[in-house]
């Protein structure tokens, strides 16, 4: 019975990793964007 839930568990784990990666990259983009804006002001 527990094995039956394995495919759904795998999808959930992948979703968590994908969301973490997307949020982390958003943070990097935001930092890079702010740096570019700061350079442009100078």
């Amino acid at each position, binding site marked *: 019975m*527990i094995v039956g839930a394995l495919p*759904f568990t795998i*999808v959930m784990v*992948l*979703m968590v990793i*994908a*969301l973490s990666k*997307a*949020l982390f*990259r958003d943070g990097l983009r935001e930092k890079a964007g702010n740096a570019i804006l700061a350079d442009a002001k100078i």
Partner: protein
Amino acid sequence: MQSAYRYTFLHFGFHAWAIYVTTGLALAYYAYTRDMPLTIRTALIPLFGKAPNGALGHLVDVLGVVATILGVSATIGFGVSQLVDGIYAVSGVEWLMNGDATAPKPSTVGLLAALFAIMSMSILSAISGVARGIKYLSNLNLVLSIILLITFVVFGSFLFSMTQFGLGLVDYILHFVQLSFHAYGPQSAENFSASLPTAMNSLPAEDIASIYSGATSAWGSLVIAVPNLIHLMLCEIP
């Protein structure tokens, strides 16, 4: 009592909400920040690039639909039976039950009528949108919950329930990791009967079979613990 609270918290506490939040947050994030469709495959794009547009995406979406169907069917299956029991307890309408006075169970007609009523309400709620049907139902649900809580506070043993609630919550947090990784394996009927408290040994075999059935069900804590908790809350504890 401790076990009832522990498993009720496990099934309806942080563990359950973690699953809802992960799915909801992933879908909402891609839909509202990237204008992508509200599908499970969308959530995997940062990990697999364009691969979810093909067979992998179909597989993931099919799994999502199957999980939804299984979840909804279990909820509606138990909900319909409880609804019929509840309406019969309040109204005494005979045709809802099978006519067996010693062990009344919902009749097929009663179950089908309740299923039709629930499905109609849920379809109406879904097609009317979040701003109308779902909002009204959510508000009604909240108001009824508050009325139920006030009923317990006024007519039940509120101090006892709150003490148990606090103890149960602490117990749940202390056993959080252990419960998270515990693989549930139901006991055999014989072992279950042997492990019951001695005071319960005098119960008829049908009652013990009924308790075993509830305790080994995936919805065990709901079927057994919640009615017991409600009963205890409404009864004065000496």
